[in-house]
């Protein structure tokens, strides 16, 4: 666990540092993930403790959004005033985005002949 913690934090730290040093619009943790990917490719495998810790973290990923989400309490007034416009935009746009993204993915995949190797699951 300690080993995994060190690896994760080091990669995040490296990501955050690079993003600040060269001022690119990429979030630090995303670059940190790229750095971690490079490390795993170099090592040609996932250390057992990192595998376990990552699985635990990702299995409870949604827990991590709760503290910021409770911040909804601060915006109740504005949400009430514009509830219809904002909710319609949220729901409509999210549904449309899921549909467009999935259809383009499958369409291009088929064009490229990827359907033959479809996992089928």
């Amino acid at each position: 666990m300690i080993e995994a913690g060190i690896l994760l934090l080091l990669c995040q730290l490296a990501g955050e540092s690079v993003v600040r040093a060269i001022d690119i619009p990429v979030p630090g943790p995303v670059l940190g993930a790229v750095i971690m990917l490079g490390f795993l490719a170099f090592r040609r495998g996932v250390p057992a403790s990192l595998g376990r810790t990552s699985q635990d973290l990702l299995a409870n990923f949604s827990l991590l959004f709760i503290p910021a989400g409770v911040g909804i309490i601060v915006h109740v007034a504005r949400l009430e005033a514009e509830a219809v416009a904002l909710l319609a935009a949220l729901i409509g746009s999210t549904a449309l985005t899921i549909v467009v993204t999935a259809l383009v993915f499958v369409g291009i995949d088929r064009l490229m002949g990827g359907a033959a190797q479809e996992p089928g699951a």
Partner: protein
Amino acid sequence: MNPQLDALWVYLQANPLGWLTATLIAYWLGVKAQRAAGGRPYVNPVAVAVVLLVALLVATGTPYQTYFAGAQFVHFLLGPATVALAVPLFQNWPQVRRSVVPMLAALLAGAVTAVVSALGIAWALGASAPSLVSIAPKSVTMPVAMGIAEKLGGIPSLTAVMVLLTGITGAVIATPLLNALGLKDWRARGFAVGVASHGIGTARAFQVNDLAGTFAGIGMALNALATAIIVPLLWQW
């Protein structure tokens, strides 16, 4: 109130321990509730937890800042968890490599659709200018979305709420919506959910299927980049 109980309450309310524990319990109850509903997406653990915690804050008259002082320890883990996405990405690398072209095409289409359709609908229904800026980056992961809104004169904490609601919406509607379309490819399903509804959608995808979760994580990461470029460009225009 009994003075001892009163002292206990003052301790619990002022100390990070109380709100941290409350956050974990609220999430645990949310997960239980979803299991009780047979794992159906309509009962979302985040939504349940947020409703419970907001009710508790309102009932006890606790300001959000006091709550966050405790809950920030959970919030902090967002960074390391994002880094941890590299692990399933590495484990599923052969699948990922084969899907690079469809992914990039879907990313471009999805990122533009997310921003333009949100702006279009909100504008048509008369949303105010600050709300429009705040809703534009709603599909990307929270810290990035807040950064975009701030740069363009939106309200970052309102964006955080839009991001949360978008995530829950995506997690709730993705399964029935994609089933209705008859899409069975876990890569496409996961990727779409990640692009449209970031980490909360990704969390849902990992619940359903590991490969879908991996592609959702990639979709989330790529859309964070794409939207950070697209929204400021659209604004200049």
